[in-house]
């Protein structure tokens, strides 16, 4: 088995006494793509936010390459630099152009040479088809373009783990694909990723392993084929049903039986 990048053990997270994540354990190996799915409010975002210590936790431990990460970590900033996170609403810095958005953390937090990072940033922008938008400001970009910039911004930090939280949920349908293709490409490069998504087709394609979360617990996990085609738990089956639609009463000609055409 590959080296472990992330080990979550017995994680417990509460908001004002209300348990949102309950005794959750999960190990992510190098190069593995894990897709987390589950009903709204089941704690998917919270889980990702705990992983890079945007939330304090009430129990358990999260380790990154064996090193515990929490809001109390002494070297919290260095640890966070190893985790790239992409949010649903891009969260680019509106007062900076695309290039400055990307360069800020590598240059200021990692103290790398601006020239070197810029070269890398331009190459990555080229890879996501945005090489000519380096000077644009976020407000001049479409949602899909902003999200691709946000991904490049995370990549430029050389993270060992990438977190994606419903990164296409705020996008118009025709822009979803351009972003998902970037993530598929990253998966092919062997990146280690933890992905939250509501796009089931995409989940199936990109995942090495599906984690189905319900009420803050892992309800079911397994390879995507098994999970989608033959879910073991009733909850998962019920959840997957919400993505398929059927009309109870439909004839081929479009007219209900017994009804006359006018």
């Amino acid at each position, binding site marked *: 088995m590959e080296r472990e990048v992330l080990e979550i053990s017995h994680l417990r997270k509460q908001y004002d006494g209300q348990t949102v994540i309950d005794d959750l354990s999960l190990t992510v190996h190098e190069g593995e793509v894990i897709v987390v799915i589950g009903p709204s409010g089941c704690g998917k975002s919270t889980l990702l936010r705990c992983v890079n210590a*945007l939330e304090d936790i009430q129990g358990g431990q999260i380790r990154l390459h064996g090193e515990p990460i929490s809001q109390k970590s002494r070297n919290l900033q260095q*640890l*966070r630099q190893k985790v790239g996170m992409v*949010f649903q609403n891009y969260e680019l810095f*509106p007062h900076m152009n695309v290039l400055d958005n990307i360069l800020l953390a590598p240059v200021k*937090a990692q103290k790398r040479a601006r020239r070197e990072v810029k070269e890398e940033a331009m190459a990555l922008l080229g890879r996501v088809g945005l090489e000519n938008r380096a000077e644009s400001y976020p407000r001049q970009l479409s949602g899909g373009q902003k999200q691709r910039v946000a991904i490049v911004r*995370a990549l430029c*930090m050389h993270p060992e783990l990438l977190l994606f939280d419903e990164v296409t949920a705020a996008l118009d349908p025709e822009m979803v694909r351009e972003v998902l293709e970037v993530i598929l490409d990253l998966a092919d490069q062997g990146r280690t990723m933890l992905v939250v998504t509501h796009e089931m087709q995409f989940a199936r394609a990109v995942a090495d392993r599906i984690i189905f979360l319900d009420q803050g617990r892992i309800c079911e996990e397994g390879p995507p084929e098994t999970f989608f085609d033959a879910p073991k738990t009733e909850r998962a089956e019920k959840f997957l049903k919400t993505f398929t639609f059927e009309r109870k009463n439909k004839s081929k000609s479009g007219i209900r039986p017994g009804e006359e055409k006018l």
Partner: protein
Amino acid sequence: MPDLGLEVLWKGKNLIRLLGGLGIALRISLVSVLISIGLGTLLGMVRRKEKGLPKVIMRLYLEFIRIMPQLVLLFLVYFGTTRSFGWDLSGETAAVIVFSLWGTAEMSDLVRGALNSIPVHQYESAEALGLWEKQIYRYVILPQAVRRLLPPAINLVTRMIKTTSLVLMIGVVEVLKVAQQIIEANRMSSPNAAFGVYLAVFVIYFCACWPVSLAAKKLERRWR
């Protein structure tokens, strides 16, 4: 051509005296504005996390300063302190104290509002990138907050400049006071002096405030 009473301006040193009055008004404004921006910014940053008693006290202070007409505050500080504490403040010092108290209160509110208007996600995405707290403020939060702060802050500055005209009431010889003196002195020779002199006062105050708001507009446009 009607007699606008403009000729008194050219008599003797009248225009120079008016401009000298503007100098005093601007000096009071400048000192109070600088104090207000400094203290107000600090206070505004502190006030973001305030709760309990300090919050109540700040709220009361702010409301008090806002509700009181500036003139009443001026009288309170200038005459009140002499009576109660035996202090002998100069009119200019009293004016600076009042305008600083006022400006600091308003500025702290503006700063707090500007900082609070930056969405929490901006902090989080900067944190997620592994930036240190100081860097987050310096590169992400403050630049955005300053852009939002600028229009209301400039508005405050021009209001402060305008309000300095009140200090004639406590004996500081500034523009309006000089104007009244000139009108008084020329009552016989040019009865229409009031119009001309107040017109000049209008132009002088306009010239003092206009560049400030012009500069602000320019900055705003550049940052949009």
